[in-house]
């Protein structure tokens, strides 16, 4: 596939810019050959073998903040769009590929220093190239009693994942919420530190988030307003114990009482880790009889079938972290709250005391909820080899919303002529406080027509979700404009505000144009 030039940039200017990038970072860290630039293509592109795949023109990998400053100044001079990545593992949401073809990938993987880890106050300060594995390794090597909160899989960047507002599983599961303090290079080349970092000699940069005056950190998440070069994170003190309990309820309509009790436990802090609400029938092993009942029979038939199997219609797993006595008391308290549901069943799950030895750890199939990064998710089977993308709407934490979302999304699937059950089951997660997020798995295939069809379904789901008051929390680069367009209250007032800030901070429009639907003035459709 031919590599494009940055939009509106001549070959001569592009070549000059590359030479200046080389002068800034060293020739070996500017990548412009096809084989090098290919490494930045989206491994899960929904445009497989189609001309719409977004291809970068080159990549540059600085090692120092000063080099990042030089790069943005050079890019500004030649109006070359920069697409910043940390480790480039944002799979399912675009990977390391840019939002518009011809962008130069600003690859921060060499900025991989763990700058500080504080065991007494439980925080870390890291550069963007530090992966969850890197910080875990650092903590293990120094035998610190600290946990990280890796997402699944754990090869991504703490900074990148937090900036994309990703989620994990432990009590620090909301990764942006767990950050404390940033350093940012603006499009002008200026360097800003947020929160207490603005003091210059701050001794609490990673301990108090807000500093003094307006709190600006949020505008640099899912954003194209600056390049984050350092970020602080609160870490979880290694707990004494972990316990997982399972709650199963027998009837479809039990979802209301189930979610009410779950919300109470989550919002009161009794349950602090990520939970998932599963329609049990959607997630079991292949079962022809179950498949027949799901398509052609009534809800009560399905309830009876699940009861015969000793399973609930709905299942929730509850993770508990903390002192062993507290964990046991929390599980007992949780059971009391769910025990008002007739026929509810409880099962004790995994139970661990920390620290675990390496041998103990290696026996655990999924160590991620224990703060241990892993790639095991790729080994569970499924069509991962050709890829996937995620459709991930936020819905209210209510039983009504779970039922309605299930019904609405299945109807979209049917309306589009797909067989019943073509949409995957709905795992409903509590990665974030107070609301559920649904994570739909959309396969990427080496089949142009199937990918087009899936993109059509995806876009239809976006608009139907918006009609019901549900919006996505994050999306693949291919759908950023689609998602942004439905956040349209008061004639797109929020996006007009984003554009105002964008034009003020990045007047040349060089930082990730169009990321999350925020376009610089020169590339806005209204100016095209």
């Amino acid at each position: 596939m031919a590599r494009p030039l940055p939009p509106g940039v001549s070959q001569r200017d592009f070549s000059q810019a590359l030479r200046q990038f080389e002068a800034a970072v060293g020739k070996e860290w500017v990548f412009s050959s096809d084989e090098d630039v290919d490494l930045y293509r989206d491994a899960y592109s929904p445009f497989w073998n189609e001309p719409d795949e977004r291809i970068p023109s080159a990549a540059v990998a600085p090692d120092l903040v000063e080099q990042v400053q030089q790069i943005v100044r050079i890019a500004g001079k030649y109006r070359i769009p920069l697409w910043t990545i940390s480790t480039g593992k944002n799979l399912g949401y675009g990977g390391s590929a840019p939002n518009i073809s011809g962008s130069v990938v600003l690859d921060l993987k060499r900025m991989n220093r763990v700058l500080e880890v504080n065991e007494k106050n439980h925080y870390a300060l890291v550069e963007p190239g530090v992966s969850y594995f890197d910080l875990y390794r650092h903590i293990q090597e120094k035998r610190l009693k600290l946990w990280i909160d890796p997402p699944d899989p754990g090869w991504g960047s703490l900074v990148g994942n937090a900036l994309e507002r990703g989620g994990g599983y432990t009590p620090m599961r909301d990764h942006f919420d767990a950050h404390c303090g940033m350093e940012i290079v603006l499009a002008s080349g200026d360097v800003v530190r947020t929160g207490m970092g603005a003091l210059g000699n701050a001794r609490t940069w990673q301990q108090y988030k807000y500093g003094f005056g307006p709190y600006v950190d949020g505008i640099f998440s899912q954003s194209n307003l600056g390049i984050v070069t350092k970020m602080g994170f609160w870490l979880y003190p290694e707990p004494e114990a972990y316990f997982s309990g399972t709650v199963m309820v027998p009837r479809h309509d039990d979802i209301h009482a189930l979610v009410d009790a779950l919300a109470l436990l989550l919002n009161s802090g009794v349950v602090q880790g990520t939970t998932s609400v599963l329609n049990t029938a959607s997630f079991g092993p292949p079962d022809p009889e179950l498949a027949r009942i799901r398509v052609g029979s009534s809800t009560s038939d399905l309830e009876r079938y699940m009861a015969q199997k000793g399973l609930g219609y709905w299942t929730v797993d509850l993770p508990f972290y903390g002192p062993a006595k507290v964990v046991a008391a929390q599980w007992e308290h949780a059971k009391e709250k769910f025990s008002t549901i007739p026929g509810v069943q409880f099962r004790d799950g995994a139970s661990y005391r920390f620290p675990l030895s390496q041998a103990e750890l290696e026996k655990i199939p999924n160590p991620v909820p224990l703060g241990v990064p892993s790639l095991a998710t790729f080994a569970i089977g499924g069509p991962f080899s050709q890829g996937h993308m995620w459709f991930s709407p936020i819905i209210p934490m209510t039983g009504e919303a779970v039922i309605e979302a299930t019904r609405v999304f299945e109807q979209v699937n049917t309306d589009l002529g797909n067989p019943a059950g073509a949409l995957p089951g709905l795992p409903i997660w509590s990665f974030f406080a107070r609301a559920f997020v649904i994570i739909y798995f959309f396969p990427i295939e080496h089949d142009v027509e199937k990918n087009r069809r899936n993109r059509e379904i995806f876009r239809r789901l976006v608009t139907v979700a918006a009609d019901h008051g549900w919006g996505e929390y994050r999306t693949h680069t291919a759908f950023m404009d689609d998602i942004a367009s439905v956040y349209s209250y008061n004639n797109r007032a929020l996006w007009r505000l984003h554009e105002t800030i964008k034009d003020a901070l990045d007047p040349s429009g060089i930082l990730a144009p169009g990321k999350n639907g925020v376009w610089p003035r020169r590339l806005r459709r209204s100016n095209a």
Partner: protein
Amino acid sequence: MTSRRQMLQIGLTGAALLPIAMYADAWAGAWGAEPLYTEPLYMAVFDERFPKSRALAGELAGPFTPLAAVRGDVTALWYHDLYFAWRKRPQPIAGVTSAESLFCLELLARDVGLHVTRRQVVDAKLVSWSIGPSARRAGRVPRTPPR
């Protein structure tokens, strides 16, 4: 260390090893008589759940290359071994594994400037592959600097 001559001799012992020979030849063709064949395979990876994987990886590796076993998940292999090896020098590896295992290794290899240079479906569950520097990049693969 395996020499180019040794590698080619290994490659000539059976059709299953042809890709290795082609790999070495591609390097040699791009770089003239001497340079890149001094880089032997660091390891050959197989999935111990599949007997065929072990047999094919053994053939692929030849007598001079260590074999490394996985069971789908490559986390331990990378975390305890490849991470350190590739930090010192991004070295080629090969294997016969599931496509999912290869996918993980391919993306981890990207981080050190290595590519999948050969990919061949063996059956519904296994793929035979090689990861290494491309011919043009082989002389200047990026190194992760020490922290």
